């Protein structure tokens, strides 16, 4: 290793995040990026598994840039409060693919902020309980909902240990071409699947995080920024006791 040995973890993660941002201009990766820039013409395979690492020490309390970016990317911000609904109800029921969660250690008082979204489990409980097969895991590890077969029963919302899914209660007037969504279906983070299939290398939340707290990549590629960071530093799966092998991991939780 040519890395200095006294490098602390925070500096390393900063560097890793920098690498993730720089891959676009690095010559080798750039070529690959161009090769993949066209829409996919072959089926996804399990040669890759997409995942994320979130460094909670960098995640700033009160910042919601990732949430806004997610809303914009997927058209969630185009939805308006239904007529007659109270602010309280709307706040409770409006679709959110990323939730801002604040944890407080009652013994020490230490507060941790983190974005909580679909954890893209290897063994997803939402898929287990879905009666129609609408909730499924793609070969590349993305857990998503096939809205064509979703009947809106919301079993998956009950089954998810992370409260990651939302239900659309009202007609959606405005939607984007890339993210079709409508009344009566459950939805959640799909790791910007439209970007995955069109050759993109980042997610909207990662691009938006000015603190560099989110590293996205292929967990099966030992050279990816996310794999390198995970190999070097302690990470946890939230509710690791459930043995779901989540694709989204956290540090310092």
């Amino acid at each position, binding site marked *: 290793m040519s890395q200095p040995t006294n490098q602390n973890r925070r500096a390393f993660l900063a560097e890793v995040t920098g690498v993730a941002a720089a891959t676009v201009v690095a010559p080798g990766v750039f070529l690959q990026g161009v090769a993949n820039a066209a*829409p996919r013409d072959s*089926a996804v395979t399990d040669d890759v598994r997409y995942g994320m690492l979130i460094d909670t020490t960098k995640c700033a309390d009160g910042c919601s840039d990732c949430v806004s970016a997610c809303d914009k990317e997927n058209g969630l911000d185009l939805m308006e409060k239904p007529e007659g609904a109270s602010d309280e109800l709307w706040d409770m029921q409006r679709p959110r693919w990323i939730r801002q969660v604040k944890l407080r250690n009652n013994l020490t008082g230490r507060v941790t902020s983190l974005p909580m979204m679909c954890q893209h489990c290897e063994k997803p409980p939402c898929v287990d309980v879905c009666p129609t097969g609408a909730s499924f895991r*793609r070969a590349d590890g993305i857990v998503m909902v096939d809205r064509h077969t979703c009947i809106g029963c919301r079993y998956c919302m009950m089954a998810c240990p992370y409260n990651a899914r939302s239900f659309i209660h009202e007609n959606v007037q405005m939607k984007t*071409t890339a993210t079709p969504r409508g009344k009566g279906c459950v939805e959640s983070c799909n790791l910007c699947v439209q970007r995955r*299939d069109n050759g993109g290398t980042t997610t909207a939340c990662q691009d938006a995080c000015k603190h560099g707290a989110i590293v996205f990549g292929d967990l099966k590629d030992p050279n990816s920024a996310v794999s390198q960071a995970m190999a070097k530093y302690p990470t946890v799966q939230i509710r690791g006791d459930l043995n779901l092998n989540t694709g989204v991991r956290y540090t310092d939780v």
Partner: protein
Amino acid sequence: MKCKSGFSLLLVLCLGLFAGQGTVQAGEGVEGTARADKLDACVAPTATMRRSHFELIKHQRDVTVHQGIRKTDNSLAGCVDCHVRKDAQGKQVPVNAPGEFCAGCHEYAGASLDCFTCHATKPTGN
């Protein structure tokens, strides 16, 4: 083409009934402003498209959602992109607005059109 003008006539007659009910109060699409208007045929011969377009789209939706294949001639986004018309002001008119490409036939045939409960009715660029 005779058939199409028949639809138009019927729709003109029906427009009075539908006025005010549509979700989007845009102007009416102008004939010839869609990309498809300038082409001889769609991705398959016209007769096939009229009879079986839903089979193409239905097959494609499963392939796209489950296998991530987006490079295709048969995507619904492609249909909308090509068939969306513009009104007199140059603004795109949703394909499911009364009398527009999708709704025109579906209303006439009495076949419900569920695609646009979720899918965008005009290209949004992303």
